[in-house]
Each structure stands twice: as C-alpha cells, then as structure tokens.
C-alpha cells in the first residue's frame, strides 16, 4: 500500500501536525519504507485469532461513585501557556 504526498498531507492534517514542504517529501519516502517493511504481516495466517488489546487479564474493582478529587484549579492551570479568569485561554474559536 504505497503512500503519496497527498496522503501524507491528509494524515498530517488528521494528526494536527504542520509539516514543512521538505519535511513532507521526506516523510513520504520514510513512511513508504516503513509501511513496506510492515506489510510482511499480511502473510501471517490470523483466520480465527481474536485481536489482543490487553496482556494481563485485569478486572477492575468497583468503587463508590463519589468525587475523590477537585478544588485544585490553581494546580490545573499552573502550566498553561495562557490562562485567564480561571480558564485556559486559546485563540478565538467562533468566527
């Protein structure tokens, strides 16, 4: 499954990742190499195999549905690049 510059631009958009033009071309080459190498998996017979998404069979314990945290607005905002009036501040969202 070969990837072209257009696909790389689309995926970069999905990932919210700005790539410089020369970065994009290099990425296309590298992704093709890596995906070409990964493609060997298609040859593995996985007919009846169930996909694995957890390595240890862990059942979570139940707990009471109560607030266990909170009142730490200052901590939450302490590392924000921009905060105002107790909120995170971002560029205008609504035009």
């Amino acid at each position: 499954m070969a990837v072209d510059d257009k696909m790389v631009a689309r995926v970069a958009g999905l990932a919210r990742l700005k790539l410089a033009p020369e970065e994009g071309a290099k990425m296309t080459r590298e992704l093709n190499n890596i995906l070409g190498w990964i493609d060997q998996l298609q040859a593995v017979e996985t007919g009846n195999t169930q996909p694995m998404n957890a390595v240890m069979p862990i059942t979570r314990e139940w707990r009471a549905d109560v607030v266990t945290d909170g009142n730490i607005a200052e901590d939450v905002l302490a590392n924000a690049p921009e905060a105002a009036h107790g909120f995170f501040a971002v560029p205008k969202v609504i035009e």
Partner: protein
Amino acid sequence: MSALTDLSLAKMQSGLAAGEFSARELVSAHVSAVEAARPLNAFLVETPDHALAAADAADAALKAGTAGPLAGIPLGIKDLFCTKGVETTAASKILQGFKPRYDSTVTEKLFAAGAAMLGKLNLDEFAMGSSNETSAYGPVISPWRADGSSENLVPGGSSGGSSAAVSARLCAAATGTDTGGSIRQPAAFTGIAGIKPTYGRCSRWGVIAFASSLDQPGAMARDVRDCAIMLEAMSGYDPKDSTSINAPVPQWAAALNGSLKGKRIGIPREYRVEGMDPQLEALWQQGIDWAKDAGAEIVEVSLPHTREALPTYYIVAPAEASSNLARYDGVRYGQRVTPPGGSLNDMYEATRGAGFGGEVKRRIMIGTYVLSAGYYDAYYLKAQKVRALIAQDFERAWESCDLLLTPTAPTAAFGLGAKSADPIAMYLNDVFTVPASLAGLPAMSIPAGLDSQGLPLGLQIIGKPLDEQGVLDAGHALECRAGFTAAPQHWW
C-alpha cells in the same frame, strides 16, 4: 573517583546502617560525580538540593531508627516520570518548562522510602528511540569507549541517560521505562543490569505515556540484587492506574537464589538469526553453559512468530502513541506556537509541528495512518491479531520450560550517528526485546561479557507472568558465573 560511588546499592544500605559513612557523605560524593560528568549529557536537570535534603532526612531517620529501605540512596530518575516541582519534559521541546504539580506513583514510593533524587535523566524524545539520539536536548554519550578509540558511542535507548549514569557511577540505580526494550537494550550497551517487570507491576500513573498497552517502569542498577531492591520499592498496586496488578509485591531481594536446580531454561530457536555476530552467539552458548552449571535443564523451544514481532510493534506502538500524544496541543501545558491571526486549529498544527522532533512525528504519522478509516483493519486489527499469536507462542513455550535465555541486543553499542539515517536499521535493535514486551512478560538483561573491542554484551532472561523472582534468580546465577566487573574508563 571516590570509593563511595563504586559501592553497590546493597553495600550502600549496609554501610549507612553500620554508620561507616553518612548519607550526606554518600550523596555529596554522587552530586560531585554528576557535576563532573556533564560531558555525558546524562542529566537534563540536576537536583542537588533535593538529594542533599533527602540525605539529611536519611541521616536523622537512621539515627532515630525510622529509616526507610532506600534512605539516603542516590538515584537518577528518567525524565518520563513526573516529579513535583521539577521540570519534566520527556526530552521533548513541546514540554519545555513543564513543572508537574504532583509526583508519579513510582517516584512517590521511592521518595517515601527515603531515596535521594540527583536529577532527571535524559532519554529519547517521549521514549521513542534506541540510541538516545532523538532527545531534543542532545544525545547522551556513553561512558564506554572501544579499546584504544575515542569515538563517542550511544548508551542505548530510550533509557540512555539512566544506563549512562548507572554505568558511569553517577548514581546507585535509576528508574527506566520499557516499551519495546528501552530498559534492557541500554543496560546491555553499558554493562549494567536492568529489569522490566510484568506489565502492571509498576504503576504507570504520572509516567508520560508513549504506548500504554506496552509501557512499563522498571529498574536499572549495576547488579541483579540492586535491581531487585529497587524494583521492590517501585512496585505495587495503584488504583490510579487502570492496568495495575492487584497482587502483593514479593520480597525479591531477600529471596534471591542463584541455584537453578529443577528449572528448565528454554532456548528459542528463532532467536538464532542469520548473520548473527559470532561473538554474540558464543556468549549465548556461554550463558547456556552457565545455566547448566547452576543446575538448570536446557530445552530447545520454538517461538514461531518471532520474526513478526517487530513489524507488529511498529503498528501497535505508533498507533497508541498517536492517540496519547494528541494531548499536546498547546492549551494545557508545555509550549504554544500561535501564528499571527491564526485560528485554534492553526495553533494546534504550528505548536505540534514546532514542538515534536523527527522520530516522534514519524511515529505519530504511522499511528494516525494505521488507525485511519480504510486502513484500520489491514494494519491495526491485523497487528493486534498477530500480537495474540506472539503471546500464544510464549504460553506454549511455558509448557516445556520455566524461563527463556536469549541475547539482549543484536550488536554492542554503535557510534553516534551510525544508524540515525535509517529508521528501520534503528528499529532492528529491539528485535530480541520486543516479543516479551508484546506479551507483557517480565524480562531482564544482565552484563555477561565484553566483545573483542572491549564493549559490553548482555544476555536476556524472560519469565512467566509475575515470575520476577525466577527472572532475577536466573539473572543472579548467570551474573555470578559471568563475574562481570568491567567498568568504563573515566575519560569525561
């Protein structure tokens, strides 16, 4: 170099308890060693104040008889663990200036046990790499050099600051994290021991996430006993980590036993890859002989999907990474880049474009691609199925053996820049470590010998789920027979 920095962690404990030296003396010697070793670039942040305050507290506690198990022990902390009030960047520009308001569960446990943090250790950016060259703050230089050479070598990765610092005698032990080999491969490259426990043994809470179904904290130290002591202090159930194992933590160090009588050690035939370095093959055979000498029975086993483990990993890990790293958007923490007059979306894209390095971008791109509509089944779902087959291979192997013995890495440490241009060549470093990661198994690397250039080589032991004791015991048995005492020559 002061003799205090050469002591094992266990010897530091007994020396402190016997009053042979104070924690202040012990920690001061290490603070000086850290300062003198800046050319290695192993530390991103030095925290001598934290270390000396912990030392004084340890001296008081030792006098009062209330000292914790790690009282006054100088440690390095991989900069993937959040530390309260101390900059934590995961070696990424995007987290520059981030000072967590809390400690990770693991560091909280270590500090509660009395440990003194010397600083935060360099790593590959977001733990993505096998040579510590992807750090946004420059590579770590290994304290090791080939005989008669002054070429700079890599310390392995991603826990390259940890491996360099422990091997250069800058700290007694260090925390590491292992997603596909990030504790074991750097341990092998620098002639130290490192253990990745069973997935879920150590809490991931407060550890900056790379690939959550694989990430696991672990211990790095100069011998197996020290790894056991360290791991004991780091492990335990944590309700704040949804994949934490609710099981008691055994006393691994106290139970450490170098006899392998009655143990069957499996040698997986698929790890005998074509073109394997004859020195590595000879060392592996040596390890087999040591295991026999310790009383083990050797059996040949098969792990048929070994070859597919690496490509599987390079779908699963980037997929999880692309999802985990979506949180770095310039809103809540870290760096922000706002193009003039730009929208919120422009800010996200510019922030991430400027904040992430090349390898991280590559993995976010692969991950986003394999999870995107139309490709999910062919890549991600397929990889999850092959992952299940890899785990089943191990389960089948456990029918005929108790532990597995393999090399840790396909080569000794290489020169800086030797593999940076070819991502796949770099990925192949983890060919022997990734399978156990995909199956969530405990595994460790022990220093087993030197190659003809005088560089360390490691052997890996893989165990059944929750059998860290078996892994440590086998590591101890091999270590006793290997008698590895080599240390890097002090050139820095």
